[in-house]
């Protein structure tokens, strides 16, 4: 009995099973349906894109931990999720070197320059996507057609909408194509169904809350719906906006990124509304056909401000209380 070595720490002495690893690997698991579907739709090239992105992200993570003399975190799952998200955001025929550049921008240029996991202001995968889109616009907007053997490419429905107008866009695909994913687009954003299945898993495990996706998708629906009602010949229906582009991927997997979204519920509502409105505005009148990435990145920049607003508000209330008592 005396041989027992007592150790002292502070309460509580039991902890939940959640850890950074469990959160990250569950997010990766939730992305699996979309990833598997992308490989089914686009074949071997899609598999290569996924493998390259994941491996290069993990490698850059290891490199940065070594350079910064930090405990090695390359297998904590966060680099894996970033790699998966980059892969889901690019066309299947993107050259490998561009994928490596994108991973470099995400891990080194977005995450580690701010101090690593937990400190980055912007979503790494989104910065990578926007960087690639601006640097290599041609490669990033010619989307392969599903099941095509010789990598036939075409514009995405949103792209057609922007350049050729509503009729051409509507005739290029059906809404059910968008829902199941059998349309042109980046690896992961084509299938609304696969993304919803993954998101359901995250809700079940309670790693994300409904606030941000609901407010973001809801505001896109209402905003585009309003203009559809005003002029159905120029503006696409809200259902068209739901199933095309990266809205579902962005709303469930990028906007909800823990590190780059607000902490309080009311902050999350403001954040979600901002993302949704900016997405709709860019889609309807912007220079780019798709606005989800830009919208989320812009709102990422506002997150510290939103959190500060919430804190100052609490502080002011506490001050008032202490003055009255």
């Amino acid at each position, binding site marked *: 009995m005396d041989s027992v*070595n*007592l*150790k*002292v*720490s*502070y309460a509580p002495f039991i902890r939940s099973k959640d850890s950074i690893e469990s959160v990250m690997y569950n997010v990766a698991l939730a992305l699996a349906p979309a990833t598997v579907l992308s490989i089914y739709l686009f074949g071997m090239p899609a598999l290569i894109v996924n493998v390259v992105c994941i491996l290069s992200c993990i490698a850059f993570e290891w490199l940065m931990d070594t350079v910064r003399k930090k405990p090695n975190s390359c297998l904590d799952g966060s680099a894996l999720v970033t790699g998966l998200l980059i892969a889901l955001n690019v066309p299947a025929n993107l050259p490998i070197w561009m994928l490596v550049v994108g991973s470099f921008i995400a891990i080194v240029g977005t995450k580690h320059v701010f101090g690593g996991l937990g400190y980055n202001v912007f979503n790494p995968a989104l910065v990578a996507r926007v960087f690639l889109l601006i640097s290599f616009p041609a490669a990033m907007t010619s989307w392969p057609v599903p099941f095509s053997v010789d990598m036939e490419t075409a514009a995405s429905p949103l792209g057609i909408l922007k350049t050729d107008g509503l009729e051409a866009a509507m005739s290029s695909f059906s809404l059910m194509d968008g829902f199941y994913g059998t349309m042109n687009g980046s690896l992961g954003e084509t299938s609304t169904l696969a993304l919803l299945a993954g998101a359901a898993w995250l809700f079940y495990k309670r790693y994300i809350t409904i606030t941000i996706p609901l407010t973001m998708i809801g505001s896109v629906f209402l905003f585009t719906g309003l203009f559809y009602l005003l002029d159905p010949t120029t503006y696409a229906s809200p259902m068209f906006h739901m199933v095309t582009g990266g809205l579902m991927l962005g709303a469930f997997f990028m906007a909800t990124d823990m590190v780059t979204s607000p902490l309080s519920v009311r902050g999350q509502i403001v954040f979600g509304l901002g993302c949704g409105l900016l997405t709709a505005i860019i889609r309807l009148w912007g220079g780019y056909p798709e606005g989800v990435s830009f919208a989320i990145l812009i709102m990422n920049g506002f997150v510290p401000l939103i959190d500060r607003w919430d804190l100052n508000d609490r502080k002011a209330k506490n001050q008032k209380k202490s003055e009255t008592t």
Partner: protein
Amino acid sequence: MISEAFIPAVSSLGAVALALGVIIHFVSKKFHVEEDPMVTIINDILPGVNCGACGYPSCNQFAEVLVETKDSSMSCPAGGSDLAAKLGDTLGIEMAEPKPQIAVLMCQGDNDIARETAEYMGIQDCWAATQAFVGPKQCRYSCVGLGSCIAYCDFDAMRLENGLVVIDKDKCTGCEACIAACPTGVLVMQEKKAERYFIACNSHDKGAATKKACDAGCIACQKCVKVCEDDAIVIDNFLAKIDQEKCTACGKCIEVCPTKVNCIRLEHDLNAVKQKKAS
């Protein structure tokens, strides 16, 4: 072709620069603050670490008050007597000789001497540790040994060694910043002296309890009190204390101390010894 693009660009930028320059000029005139040049001179003499030992939040404020009041009793503990002389020369007054102080750790219970309670696995900070339990050492009056005070030292005079804080006597300026950072109150300020005897123990436990917890604890045996010819040692609440004013550094107490590791310590302040020799 070139001039078409060149001239409007250069001229418009030039105009903007000119306008801003004029505005800056007037603003600096309008909001100019009159400052006594003496404050800047004094501020340059001061150590400039804003340690707060003088009672003012910054060196600059100390300088402002000193220039305005010319109060000769004001002193900068971090600067010592050299600085006092310099300040006096600059201001043309006789500054009072400051009593140099030094932080002293009243504990010798390092990891070998003090008995340990249990391994502490929480936040590695003295305050956090004492919230969880009595501390990693059995003696509740001892140096906790996780070094919370070190972060408060502006002069890089403290370090952790074998579970005890060690104070570098040459670097310590006596600014007192560390005193408030200690949860057990084992750090105290003492006057700098050439030879300084003190009881390096903080335990107010009864002798038996102290002895059980630590080999270097004062057990309040009264031997040093009896042998002291200057009446400089008193026992207060089971702990001996040496009155630095009365102590003549005869060293008799250290010979009679019966504890395993002598609880009375003699420390030489080297700089003070040198100064004494020089004078």
